[in-house]
């Protein structure tokens, strides 16, 4: 038993070293000393409290959009629509934030977050429904949904909800009573991080300990058998899809209430897709999602620093992420073969 764990750890360490080596080669090719480059990335992501907090901040949408893929996939259904759900959720929160007021900041924030989750949920509803009623491929519908949502939101912030005092396509600011407060002076770090982390742990708990989680797991593993055991597999699939949509919508809401304070063009640099990658790399495991989101966030915040101090462009972080994806997929395939039937 012990030697087996040890073996696994050795393999992982070795594996991480290989990824680092390939990264080093790529950085060297783009004309920078890999060690100093790693230094810049580390410094720019963990170097001081400010950097560290912005890395944690970056984790919020990545973690939640990854979870939005993970929950439905536990039940054997795919949600590639995190990006669109996030955008709509963000818009929903902004809409509430500049149009109503419930009188207390707590209620305002709570209500706006619920609305953002509902917007995301609705955007997962039709693909989920089409899947269980007509067996329409959810990969296609959720993916397509991203484009529809993105153009729809763009329309909304360009025309009916545009802040006309601004030269850019964006909504008005939300009322300050809707803002999730920053925790430290000089940093955008707010309670959003803890809300997001809390949501991940809640779902970790649900999938492991709840009856409902058990039914999700069984449905994902063998739907025919689950049906024989009296589990309503279609309902389970639909509900898990809705939960995924809600979590992605919530990510958008948290970004609006905790950071941007309005909905705007280029609101998301593709968080939904980063989340998808993270979820795949994390084998759908919520705890691993937290760790891998941290690495992705580190790369993304750190590479800004890298660009600042070297002649390596910040886009390199995308390339480094791609290398990681490549290696993890290869590793997955190899271990699948080894463990083979």
């Amino acid at each position, binding site marked *: 038993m012990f030697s087996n764990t040890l073996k696994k750890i050795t393999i992982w360490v070795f594996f991480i070293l290989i990824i680092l080596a390939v990264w080093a080669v790529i950085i060297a090719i783009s004309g920078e000393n890999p060690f100093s480059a790693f230094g810049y990335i580390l410094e720019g992501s963990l170097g001081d409290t400010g950097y560290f907090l912005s890395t944690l901040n970056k984790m919020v949408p990545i973690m939640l959009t990854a979870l939005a893929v993970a929950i439905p996939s536990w039940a054997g259904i795919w949600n590639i629509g995190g990006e669109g759900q996030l955008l709509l959720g963000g818009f929903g929160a902004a809409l509430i934030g500049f149009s109503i007021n419930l009188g207390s900041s707590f209620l305002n924030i709570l209500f706006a977050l619920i609305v953002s989750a509902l917007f995301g949920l609705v955007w997962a509803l039709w693909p989920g429904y089409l899947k269980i009623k007509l067996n329409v491929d959810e990969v296609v519908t959720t993916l397509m949904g991203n484009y529809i949502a993105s153009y729809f939101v763009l329309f909304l912030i360009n025309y009916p909800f545009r802040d006309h005092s601004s030269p850019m396509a964006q909504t008005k600011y939300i009322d300050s009573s809707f803002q999730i407060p920053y925790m430290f002076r000089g940093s955008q770090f707010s309670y959003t991080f803890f809300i997001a982390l809390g949501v991940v742990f809640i779902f970790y708990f649900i999938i492991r300990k709840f*009856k409902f989680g058990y039914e999700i797991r069984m449905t994902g593993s063998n739907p*025919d058998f689950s049906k024989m055991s009296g589990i309503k597999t279609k309902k389970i699939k639909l509900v898990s899809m809705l939960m995924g949509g809600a979590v992605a919508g919530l990510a958008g809401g948290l970004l609006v209430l905790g950071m941007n304070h309005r909905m705007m063009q280029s609101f998301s640099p593709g968080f939904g897709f980063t989340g998808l990658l993270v979820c795949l790399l994390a084998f759908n495991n919520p705890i691993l999602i937290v760790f891998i989101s941290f690495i992705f966030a580190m790369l993304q915040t750190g590479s800004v620093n890298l660009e600042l101090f070297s002649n390596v462009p910040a886009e390199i972080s995308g390339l480094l992420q791609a290398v990681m994806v490549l290696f993890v997929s290869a590793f997955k395939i190899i271990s699948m073969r080894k463990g083979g039937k």
Partner: protein
Amino acid sequence: MGPDFLGGAEVITIKDLTKRYPNGFEALKGVNLSVKKGEIHSIVGENGAGKTTLMNIIFGLIKPTTGSISVDDKEVNISSTGKAIEMGIGMVHQHFMIVPNLSVMENVVLGSEKDFTNFFGKIDYKSIKLKVGDLIKKLKLSLSPEDIVRDLPIGKQQLVEILKVLYKGPEIIILDEPTAVLVPTEVNDFLDFVINLKNEGKTVIFISHRLKEVFKISDSITVLRNGKTVGSYSKQDITRDEVANLMIGKKFDFNATPPKNEKEEILFSVDDLSLKGMMIKNISFNIKKGEILGVAGVEGNGQEDLFSVLTGDILPEQGSVKLADKELNKSTILEKRKAGIAYITDDRIKNGLAIDRSILENGIAYHHKDQRFGKVLINNKNSVKLVTGIVEDYDVRGVKNMKTPVSSLSGGNMQKLLVGRELNNQVKLLIASQPTSGVDIAAKALIHDSFKELTVEGNSVLLISSDLDELMSISNRIIVLYRGKIVAEFKYPDYDIKELSYYMTGLKES
């Protein structure tokens, strides 16, 4: 050892083989085996004895911990299935490995489709069809290259598995419980087919729990017990009873009479049931309290459809299904289960278990609906208690840890877990389809005994089985399905195997 007068040279020699699985379980503790060229060599042993493990090692699927394997007197390291195939070894697995959504020919060439791909990457289906068609003809199988595997009855799917293996032209063919899913008529054809392989000079390693089959075709028999070889014997030198005793290590009495717990009151009735586009036409029958009713028939004559209707998977357009006067025809499986019906499906991998989930999770399926297992959270203590009980009562072996996946159990032990789980419900009626497929003699008796025990309290069993011996040994009554209709009914003790087969094959009609 060396060459032998009677048989050929040794093609496979295994010495002191051991296998410890990653979870620490020692499945093989010292196995010796020598297989001669051109013989049919059977491996027998209880569920969990290590037969599949041994075969998987020879086929390069898993690695042994210690010991040596020689092929043609040369020590080899079979590190992958690719290597095994190169050495001329082919294996038909205990559980299906074919892809249900593909056609017969696609399944057969899967993995070697490159041979049919032209320069532009286009697959030449015509020549695949021709080649696979030729092989089917040569082997005299009743398959058609373009049939979709999913639509074929299990017996035929088994033939696809074999076709897929033979396509690669192996010299040594491993057959791991190939007959477990076949009906008696198919079994005989299949055994002839195996003998034919031998006549063509192939070497066959054959695994089965049915000693009748083993004795019909083998040249030698090796008995495994608890991961060790008990001995290897020439067929002439040993009897069936002796083999059975060597397998379980004790004498075994098979008490084969139906229970006598039938009451007058009717528990379950099916009236004028019909299914459009399906095999079932105007079926009516009923089951009394405490009765075991057997359903005999050649596979593909409506048993599968009958089972699907009774689960609620397919809704019949006509007829009624009643359990104790409660109409259940249109109710869901959950409602049927709540009314007191339990189900043993004929294909444990397909819809009887979720093999990559744990033993614990599989053991509580459907039970989990009960409040005892918690309202919102799963009650872990009661779950463990229930599954521990099942594992003990049904003698499920190889359970080191409840959290390990079911796939780490041997086939027969998976079946015992499934049967135990179903019988642990408040069962009024058990609908069991091929309940003893792949289980050893002792476990079969255990399962039969638990069926009989059900009837003591006035509960009943509908037993759908292709095993006539099984049907005749525990059913109070047997009905015969032929082309979707009930064509005959027999009552214990007036069972006549010939008469039954006449009706089953349509030679006689009522």
